[in-house]
């Protein structure tokens, strides 16, 4: 069953077509990867889905309802959460407060303060940050900042979670931990759509991969199909 569909998704920045008539589907429960060289339009696609940028043409449909045109807070309430390529934490607030704010405001249902506190503690435990609860977010090392973004996104109780290069800048051990986290999130029943440059990670956790190049979708398939596709090899390695 499809959870998210894009129909002829197009985004122009002035004269530049960042995305051109991209059609895509994300199925319920899967881990879908989005890859492509720099400037391919991956983050732009995420920004359109999360409502951060207005769509130029086409539409994005979530669970059968059009979400393009809604504001990010409304899309979040529908059950779509994301992380950011360069982390956008509330750096002057504690780790706990970062997650707590998302628990309180992430759903349409009113959440009591005690409930939000309990949820925030549970989520910090889940991503392995409970010992840093009272630390200011800006004092965390990079790997933990990325984890905190994941915890904050999870606190909004999403059904679709988008990771924008959540493994970039991590060492091999941290990448392995992060892959494990993605697998655990998927076991919770949350659909994952992730942009990643770490090929080992994306090949290891994704069921399906979508390849963007110059704003167009050029390939789609299982990790094996993508790894052996001449077209993909050509854009990544040159002719």
């Amino acid at each position, binding site marked *: 069953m499809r959870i998210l569909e894009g129909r002829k998704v197009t985004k122009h920045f002035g004269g530049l077509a960042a995305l051109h008539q991209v059609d895509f589907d994300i199925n319920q429960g899967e881990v879908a990867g989005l890859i492509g060289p720099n400037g391919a339009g991956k983050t732009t696609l995420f920004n359109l889905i999360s409502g*951060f940028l207005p769509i130029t043409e086409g539409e994005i449909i979530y669970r059968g309802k059009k979400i393009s045109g809604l504001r990010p807070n409304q899309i979040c309430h529908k059950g779509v959460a994301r992380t950011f390529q360069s982390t956008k934490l*509330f750096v002057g607030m504690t780790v706990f407060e970062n997650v707590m704010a998302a628990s309180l405001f992430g759903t349409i249902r009113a959440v009591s303060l005690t409930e939000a506190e309990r949820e925030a503690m549970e989520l910090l435990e889940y991503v392995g940050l409970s010992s840093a609860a009272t630390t200011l977010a800006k004092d965390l090392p990079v790997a933990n900042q990325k984890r905190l973004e994941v915890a904050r996104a999870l606190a909004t109780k999403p059904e679709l979670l988008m990771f924008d290069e959540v493994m970039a800048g991590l060492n091999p051990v941290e990448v392995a931990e992060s892959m494990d986290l993605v697998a655990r999130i998927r076991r919770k029943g949350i659909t994952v759509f992730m942009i990643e440059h770490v090929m080992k990670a994306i090949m290891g956790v994704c069921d399906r991969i979508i390849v963007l190049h110059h704003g167009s979708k050029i390939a789609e398939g299982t990790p094996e199909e993508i790894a052996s596709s001449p077209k993909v090899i050509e854009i990544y390695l040159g002719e």
Partner: protein
Amino acid sequence: MNPMTKSLFTGGGIVLILILLAAMPFYAKPYSVISLTNILMYIILTVSWVIFSGSTRYISLASAAFFGSGIYTSALLGKTLPLPAVVVAGGLTSFILAFFIGLLTLRLRGMYFIIFTFSVSELIRHSLLWWEANVMGTVGRWVVMVDHTTIYHIILTIFVITMLTAYLVRRSRFGLALRSIGEQEEAAIHIGIDATILKTLTFAISASFMGAVGAIMATKWTYIDPRIAFDPHISFMPVLMAIFGGTAKLYGPVFGAAIFAYLEEILTTKFPYYYMLLFGIILIVVILFLPNGLLGLVQKWWKGGFRRQNANP
């Protein structure tokens, strides 16, 4: 001391101070009451400015617009309505004005927001001046006079309500949401916070206190015109006082405003020719050496010494 008794002590202390303040006209000299009225006015302006700008970090320079609207409301309605109603009307006028200014300007950020709010305030001042000079034919108005004790008590009431609001906002989920907006607005809207509504409403609430205090101060000055009512000085003072006091804790801006206002009073009487100069020097010293205001200084001292404590300052 356990937290229960501690909060009981704090609560008792606050009530005692309030009783002493409320009874002040009965035991203190009229001059002290008048100058305290002035200080309370600045505290209200600063604390209400901090309610919005301190947490969201949208630096507003429109305080004069809201203060002035309160003053003009008082001038227009003072003869027909009872005093408490006039004060409430002043707050309401500024609430509505701020709500619309907020809808218009809160999509701007940083420098653009600062300049826009300042310009709106100036626009109102000059438009009103033009209107009075060219349409009404007379500039300025008389305001119904009220005795000092009544003014003082009303200001004290507004002060208590402002402090209570600031305290509750700070502790509530809305305070957390406002801080999230101040820290990283894009992330805040992505975790479901409706930043537009929240910013506009908070801006309007903060403006309503400025309007109320303007409405009552007008009765003290008795004569007002657009230059007095919308004096840009009033837009800058809350910002400076908040910086001076520090905004991390609720009492920061309170002491900042109180000390600053008292200093202004002393300096203007003792050094009428140099007071602006001295004022400037004090401010520069605070900004250069006390980036977190007086509050930062107190907290540092509280934590034990002025030694640098960690590797990541």
